[in-house]
């Protein structure tokens, strides 16, 4: 037994057999094969070779027409490599000897031969490695497109994936399969991968350098996302501990679900709406189970993340939004339009590269700059709106002009749908995220342009306090209860109240029971949060007295530091009389 300490970024405990996932560039994954599957895998290789050769012949034909025979003959080297017994024999041997998938065998063989080419003295001969690399790329592309494309999710039994890193799209694919836990070398709590693991309820421990090479395949592994530890080859005692943890968790889960039937109302009779923040459709069930009164934030970028490196098409948008609207009906659903930028996906898919992406082309700025991409999402949304009341929310809005430009653009899309006779619904509610200090402090103008606003505290805090909470040097300064944040929220609540525009809050701050109580004291009546946090926050709200908290909140707002606010809150909760 060996215990490795990491960082628990998705809660829960899992026990399964280790599958160490090595991953190379081009997304090639090493997948161990059952001995009986080897022959089929070799056949798959030769199928891919055949297909690639046919495709290459077509390409060569086109090239000859376009540029002439002499230049087209460069493809001959490719074609020859694809019939080369020495090359194919090496790949086949690797599949058979190592019992690995064809993709990995192709990749490793290419890498190995590449090293040999490196040692060649004559540079122009060394360059011929390019031909080989082209051929392995063609083969990989073909293999990955073939049926029976190997996916680690087909590995039998309960599996714990041990990987250097997981991309969000891999996490989605794996988490939906037979995988019970993840242990990765890199990554932190705010990564998209962590968000997905939590959404799919798969424990994830991150920050385990070197773990891939330390764990032999198939070792029994326990992943404890609550404590942030990974136990290799756990003892009988640890396994017993695991089973009781699972039981406790199940009990806690049903206790929590039991609160869903209770009204979300304070002791002095103030009703609060708790809605769900959702990334994946899987979470709808959770949201309903915990009694969410709607979806206050569907982060549509996860639809893009799942599809990366491709962009989702209109029908995919339609299908997801339709399911959201239908399954949550009659409750409201707020879909936030694509909010990406500056991240890996934005670079890979949208080809944007910026020095300071957090202050760059993101949110509504990005979507309005790329209307051809935005158009697809909006068409999907308006078509889905036939199936339930739709609210559209724009991220990163900082000016009134952005809202007006959006309305004009949306009008054009609706015209377009009408013209081509596509069924759609023109009624929608429009809202904006308030997540930049300038938007918070001009909320009185912004609210006149929209039907609702939602305060996004994660970004608001980061921008207002100039703190990246993932930066260990300054993360101590990431203080949601800083009076500057509270004052901005107060300003937004007042502005929305005056204009009689709905206001909600959808940042993580709302899932902290103490902070949520304070926000309710400040006048907030609707919070959107991660579904699994709903029971806890609801319990807190049912214990509180809003009138009393309003007085505490007024005092908090006059203070000068987060520490003073925290102290006030602690004292207030101590003074609070117990329920009975």
């Amino acid at each position, binding site marked *: 037994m060996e215990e490795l300490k990491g960082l628990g970024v998705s809660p829960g405990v899992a026990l399964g057999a280790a599958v160490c996932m090595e991953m190379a560039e081009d997304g090639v994954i090493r997948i161990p094969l059952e001995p009986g599957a080897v022959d089929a895998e070799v056949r798959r290789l030769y199928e891919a070779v055949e297909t690639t050769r046919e495709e290459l012949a077509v390409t060569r034909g086109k090239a000859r027409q376009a540029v002439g025979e002499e230049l087209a003959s460069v493809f001959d080297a490719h074609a020859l490599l694809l019939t080369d017994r*020495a*090359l194919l024999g090496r790949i086949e041997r690797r599949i058979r000897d190592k019992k690995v998938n064809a993709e990995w065998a192709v990749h490793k063989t290419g890498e190995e*031969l590449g090293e040999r080419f490196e040692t060649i003295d004559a540079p122009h*001969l060394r360059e011929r490695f390019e031909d*080989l690399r082209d051929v392995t790329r063609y083969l990989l592309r073909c293999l990955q497109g073939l049926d029976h494309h190997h996916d680690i999710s087909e590995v039998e039994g309960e599996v714990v994936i041990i990987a250097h890193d997981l991309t969000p799209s891999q996490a989605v694919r794996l988490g939906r399969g037979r995988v019970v836990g993840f242990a990765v070398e890199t990554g932190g709590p705010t990564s998209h991968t962590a968000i997905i693991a939590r959404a799919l309820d798969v424990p994830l421990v991150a920050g385990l350098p070197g773990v891939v090479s330390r764990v032999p395949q198939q070792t029994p592994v326990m992943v404890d996302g609550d404590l942030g530890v990974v136990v290799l080859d756990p003892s009988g005692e640890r396994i017993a501990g695991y089973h009781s943890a699972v039981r406790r968790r199940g009990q806690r889960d049903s206790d929590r679900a039991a609160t869903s039937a209770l009204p979300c109302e304070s002791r002095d009779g103030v009703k609060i709406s708790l809605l769900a923040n959702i990334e994946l459709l899987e979470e709808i069930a959770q949201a309903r189970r915990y009694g969410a009164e709607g979806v206050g934030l569907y982060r549509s970028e996860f639809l893009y993340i799942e599809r990366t490196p491709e962009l989702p098409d209109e029908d995919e948008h339609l299908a997801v939004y339709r399911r959201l609207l239908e399954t949550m009906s009659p409750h409201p659903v707020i879909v936030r339009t694509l909010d990406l930028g500056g991240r890996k996906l934005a670079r890979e898919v949208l080809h944007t590269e910026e020095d300071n992406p957090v202050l760059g082309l993101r949110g509504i700025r990005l979507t309005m700059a790329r209307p051809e991409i935005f158009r697809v999402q909006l068409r999907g949304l308006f078509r889905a709106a036939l199936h339930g009341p739709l609210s559209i929310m724009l991220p990163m809005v900082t000016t009134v002009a952005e809202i007006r430009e959006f309305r004009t653009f949306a009008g054009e899309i609706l015209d377009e749908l009408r013209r081509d006779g596509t069924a759609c619904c023109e009624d929608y509610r429009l809202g904006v995220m308030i997540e930049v200090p300038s938007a918070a402090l001009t909320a009185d103008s912004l609210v006149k342009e929209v039907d609702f606003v939602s305060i996004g505290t994660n970004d608001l805090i980061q921008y207002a306090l100039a703190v990246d909470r993932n930066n260990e040097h300054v993360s101590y300064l990431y203080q949601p209860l800083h009076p500057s944040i509270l004052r901005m929220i107060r300003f937004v609540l007042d502005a929305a109240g005056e204009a009689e525009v709905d206001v909600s809050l959808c940042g993580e701050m709302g899932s902290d029971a103490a902070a949520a109580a304070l926000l309710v004291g400040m006048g907030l009546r609707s919070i959107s949060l991660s579904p699994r946090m709903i029971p806890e926050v609801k319990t807190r709200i049912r214990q509180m007295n809003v009138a009393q908290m309003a007085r505490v909140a007024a005092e908090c707002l006059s203070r000068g530091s987060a520490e003073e606010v925290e102290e006030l809150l602690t004292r207030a909760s101590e003074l609070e009389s117990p329920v009975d």
Partner: protein
Amino acid sequence: MVTRDIPVINRLGLHARAAAKLVHTAGSFSSQVYLAMDGEEVDAKSILGILLLAAAQGSEVTIRCDGEDEQKALDTIAELFAQRFGEDS
């Protein structure tokens, strides 16, 4: 079995296109055709082997043919080298 040492005289040596021609030519004979240089022998019907051999201009390779049409194969391949694989210069 017949063998012959042949100098590589074309400017680019056994680069991709020359290698492709060599593979095609070797492949048109039923004999086994091998190419050796610096103690390493490769199958002349395998482009990978030839490319890995990386015979540059000025090097000398040994052709070995074994089979029914070995003499014709050897002569034809030697001629291909002598003709610089049809390179322009």
